[in-house]
């Protein structure tokens, strides 16, 4: 509310100024406008409607692609509204809905021009890529990473994660670090999966003669915990899991205790999140060697570090050993799989698994997915470049897919490059982007515009009749769409879509080449922003020569690896895996920025000294521990654990000498009683079963 009011006031002030007929003190710099405002925001977003003949033709804001000075003046004249309308803040609304937020680059570009219009002639440095560090954070495993990780840890089937609740999709990515959280449903699915995994796994602690069961269990839990948490367990962590083991083992034996230990560790946040918190020095954070190993492993292989990588991390990385690990990881076949994953994300090929289509059997879906993965891996294995993938003259077919395409041969099959061949002619791509009843110039045009050029299209405006053209057998698909888009309201947007999609018209909704569309001859001529092309060979060539396409590929890699929006420079005709290597070798890979934590108590990077564990029969003596995690004199933060060492359930209450005023507490409640603090549990941990523990934390000022 307050932000809205402020903006609104600012807008009113702007209007008042306009009435005084201000002329900007800053020059009408058309080139500057075009580079910093038109190209990044006005052209890609506003021209969808605000053109002669467009949906918003009757508004006060009219643009003209051929007259940059008019555009400059149109935007300048709108200085009082242009920040409010597309962000949904204007009291009269915006016919084209909300298009971007206030912390977007689009907003920044427009804000720059508003300031320019109002006489502030500073030109900010354009943001360059690669300077910005990622924030220190924890990243929840994606469902794919979860599946592969448990498969590697316990040799079980990775499909265990297939049924997990779908994660938010942000700009077509399902690995957005901010959006990946654990909600109630997912936490319960983690619980079920952990129980199933530990049941399926073969667990053999290999106890030696003379070893107590407890010592044997502790050694096994320490090792499994090391692999599951991707770092050594701290002493108190291991002790907690050991206590739980002892509780289960007392009733059901050694092995069952270990199974429950696994079940518990697989639900720990230390397993579910990859730590990128780092160690602070002079306000900057550097990832620990464990964190570097984890980041490398998930970047190259999409799974947990293997033994060799953990051993290297334990020894500590230097430039040479780090480089050696990057080479080792990058030259492993699993990096090819990651490259195939990347292409699937890029072209939204996950839709192939569910898109409804007559004649699209499970077998055919699988064969199409396999074809593309195999081709990508093959090109990448040959150190092929982006252009090699676009123009590949071979593919990989099984019997089902060969019969479907009407091609001879299985396995690696050489192609003519006319009817079949190249990334855009993959059945997976053509099938995932079509309508249930046939080809779709719109779906395929949107694929090129949004995914291959990374240019987002605004949604169709409200109150516009968007009925698709009826199937009129006297017209070809192309003719129906052309007639449809003759409507000027539709044309303003569809001019950016359909001419790209027409290039795909030789391919039906299942990716098969067709000589005719029904009885009609196929016309697959199209254009890319005014440059004509015919068919997919020429479209592929036009894309290869287009900096937007190459930059988009690099940006997609960047997003796939970091789980965060960033930017990329045009890498040229780049090797398929080159952006991955470049990021791993980059100076920012192990650097993070961000806010410090409330406390930093967890020892990382060193194996703890362990004392001989107590055996099953002896419960641990400590009922309550309190550790000051951070102390700055005037205040401190602390973490505490209370354990029920008795034989019966206990509604716990802990009395401690007060040391100031508690102003922040989690997982417990506190009241002051004379010179003491009295801590009690909250809803879910107030009552402790025998042997159970509750942890809580608080901060206080003295």
């Amino acid at each position, binding site marked *: 509310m307050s932000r809205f009011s402020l903006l609104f006031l600012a807008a009113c002030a702007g209007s008042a100024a306009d009435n005084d007929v201000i002329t900007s003190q800053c020059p009408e710099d058309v080139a500057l406008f075009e580079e910093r405002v038109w190209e990044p925001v006005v052209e890609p*977003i506003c021209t969808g409607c605000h053109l002669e003949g467009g949906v918003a033709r009757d508004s006060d804001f009219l643009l003209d692609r051929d007259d940059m000075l008019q555009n400059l003046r149109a935007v300048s004249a709108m200085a009082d509204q242009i920040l409010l309308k597309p*962000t949904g803040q204007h009291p009269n609304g915006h016919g084209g809905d*909300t298009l*971007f*937020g206030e*912390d*977007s680059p689009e907003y920044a570009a427009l804000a720059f021009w508003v300031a320019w219009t109002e006489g502030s002639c500073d030109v900010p440095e354009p943001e360059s890529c690669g300077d910005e560090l990622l924030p220190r*954070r924890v990243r929840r495993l994606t469902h794919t990473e979860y599946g592969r990780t448990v498969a590697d840890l316990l040799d079980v089937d990775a499909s265990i994660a297939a*049924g997990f609740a*779908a994660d*938010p999709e*942000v700009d077509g990515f*399902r690995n957005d670090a*901010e*959006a990946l*959280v*654990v909600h*109630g*449903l*997912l*936490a*319960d699915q983690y619980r*079920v999966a952990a129980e199933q995994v530990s049941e399926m796994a073969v667990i053999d602690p290999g106890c030696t003669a003379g070893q107590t069961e407890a010592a044997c269990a502790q050694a096994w839990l320490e090792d499994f915990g090391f692999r599951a948490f991707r770092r050594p367990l701290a002493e108190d*962590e291991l002790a907690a899991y050991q206590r739980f083991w002892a509780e*289960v083992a007392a*009733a059901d034996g050694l092995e069952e205790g270990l199974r*429950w230990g696994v*079940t*518990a560790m697989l*639900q*720990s*946040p*230390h397993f579910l999140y990859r*730590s990128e918190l780092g160690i602070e020095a002079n306000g900057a954070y550097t990832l620990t060697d464990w964190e570097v190993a984890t980041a490398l492993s998930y970047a190259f292989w999409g799974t947990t570090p293997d033994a060799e990588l953990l051993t290297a991390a334990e020894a500590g990385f230097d430039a040479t050993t780090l480089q050696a690990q990057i080479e080792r990881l990058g030259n492993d076949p699993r990096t090819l799989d990651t490259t195939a994953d990347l292409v699937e994300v890029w072209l939204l090929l996950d*839709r192939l698994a*569910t*898109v409804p289509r007559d004649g699209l059997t499970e077998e055919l879906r699988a064969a199409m997915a396999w074809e593309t993965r195999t081709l990508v891996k093959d090109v990448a294995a040959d150190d092929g470049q982006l252009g090699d993938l676009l123009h590949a003259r071979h593919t990989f077919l099984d019997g089902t897919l060969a019969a479907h395409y009407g091609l001879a041969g299985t396995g690696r099959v050489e192609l003519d490059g006319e009817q079949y061949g190249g990334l855009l002619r993959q059945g997976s791509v053509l099938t995932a982007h079509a*309508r*249930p*009843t046939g080809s779709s110039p719109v779906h395929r045009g949107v694929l090129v515009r949004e995914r291959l050029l990374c240019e987002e299209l605004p*949604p169709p405006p*409200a*109150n516009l009749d*968007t009925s698709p053209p009826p199937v009129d057998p006297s017209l070809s698909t192309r003719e129906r769409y052309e007639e449809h888009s003759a409507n000027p309201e539709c044309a303003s947007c569809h001019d950016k879509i359909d001419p790209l999609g027409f290039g795909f018209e030789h391919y039906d909704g299942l990716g098969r080449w067709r000589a005719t569309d029904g009885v009609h001859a196929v016309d697959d001529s199209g254009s890319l922003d005014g440059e004509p092309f015919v068919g997919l060979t020429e479209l592929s060539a036009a894309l290869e020569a287009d900096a937007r396409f190459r930059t988009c590929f690099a940006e997609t890699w960047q997003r796939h690896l970091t789980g965060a*929006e960033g930017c990329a420079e045009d890498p040229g005709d780049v090797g398929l895996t080159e952006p991955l290597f470049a990021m791993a070798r980059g100076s920012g890979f192990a650097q993070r920025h*961000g*806010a410090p*934590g*409330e*406390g930093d*108590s967890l020892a990382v990077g060193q194996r703890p000294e362990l004392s001989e564990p107590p055996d099953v029969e002896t419960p641990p003596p400590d009922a309550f521990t309190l550790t000051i995690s951070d102390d700055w004199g005037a205040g401190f933060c602390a*973490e505490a654990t209370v354990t029920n060492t008795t034989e019966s359930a206990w509604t716990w209450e802990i009395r401690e000498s007060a040391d100031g005023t508690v102003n922040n507490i*989690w997982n417990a409640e506190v009241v002051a009683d004379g010179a003491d603090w009295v801590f009690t549990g909250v*809803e*879910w941990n107030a009552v402790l*079963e025998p042997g159970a*523990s*509750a*942890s809580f*934390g608080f901060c206080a000022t003295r």
Partner: protein
Amino acid sequence: MHRRDLLRLCGFGAAGLLASPFTRLLEPAHAGSLGGARRLLVFFTPNGTVHRHWRPESGMQFAPGSILEPLADHADDLLVLETDFVTGNNHEGGMAAMLTGGGGDSIDQVVADAIGGQSRFRSLELGALTSAWGGSSQTRMCYRGGGFVTPNDDPVNAWNRLFGDLGNTALLDRRRSVLDLAMADLTKLRGRLGAEEAARLDLHTEALREVERGLAGGGTCEDPGDLGTIRATDNDAFPDIVKAQIDVAVQALACGMTQVASVQLSHTVGPVVFSWLGESEGHHSLSHIDDGNPTGIASFVNCERWFAAQFAYLLDRLKALPDPETGAPLLDDTTVLWAQELGDGRMHECVNVPWVIAGGGGYFQTGRHLDLDETHDAVLVAVANSLGLPLTRFGVGTSGPAEVLR
């Protein structure tokens, strides 16, 4: 445009995620008189309608072949509404505004926060083919704390969560210990994070509490058996998924395991192909067929009639199962809302959006068709009022309850 920024605009992520949304909506003065319904069930179908095939004739006559005809036996128990959304337009805008009134938490979540606190499940969100495109403003309708509430698309998983392992207390104790360990680790990890990241882990903390409460036991039911096998991502299994999810929702209400449930069929722009009806075009494409294409319109009406038949099945079940406390049919004290996100699908607009209300504990005067002057936030206020919540306005709207519904 960057969808990420839209997410931010919707308040996704960062601080304040856990602030109770309900308190700020409660305004003691001027609340309309309240009803006594004790359960809420929201049903959703996507992509709008064709009004001339949907609108009841001369009062509440459902013409032969019309979309609502499968509900003829329930006509006296229905309030058939046309309402304009207070804000939001188009597929995504409509989907986001439908249950939120244009901002904040969705009505089902607000109700759940008010009346679901003592139940084993504060609320249950169930879906049928909602997730092939991931979670987005297209595919989600329930919002809480600035984020989506993700529906469970797998009825077998949902069923097992409700009725699996009933009565095995040793197992439940062990699961509680596991949650305690996770909670302890979470507390420590949280301490190392800055405020923004810590807020994300607070969601995890809340999730563990939800799981723990969900372990609490079986409600008032005997084990009702199992559901068998259902392929939860298969287009052609849609009828099985929908029926099973309705069964899960109604059974959970009947067993007192939750007071608030939703069943979301597909999502806006949803491409489900009604192959079991002999259709081959996707539902979203059919929803855009213009009046010049009678065959296409007939196909769309065919699909919409199927949706109505599922809603009829849901009402059948609510009438067949007794309230665990009163023994009366469950429907009597349940407010049922069949919500949609668009009016005329061809026009992409949230005008004359076709909604249906049933039940409501006597709060609503059913057996009528109304074209409301009030915007849809007034309907959501009335829904909340029927459940005893003294809301006076909702979302970005300023209307009180739509009194004409009473």
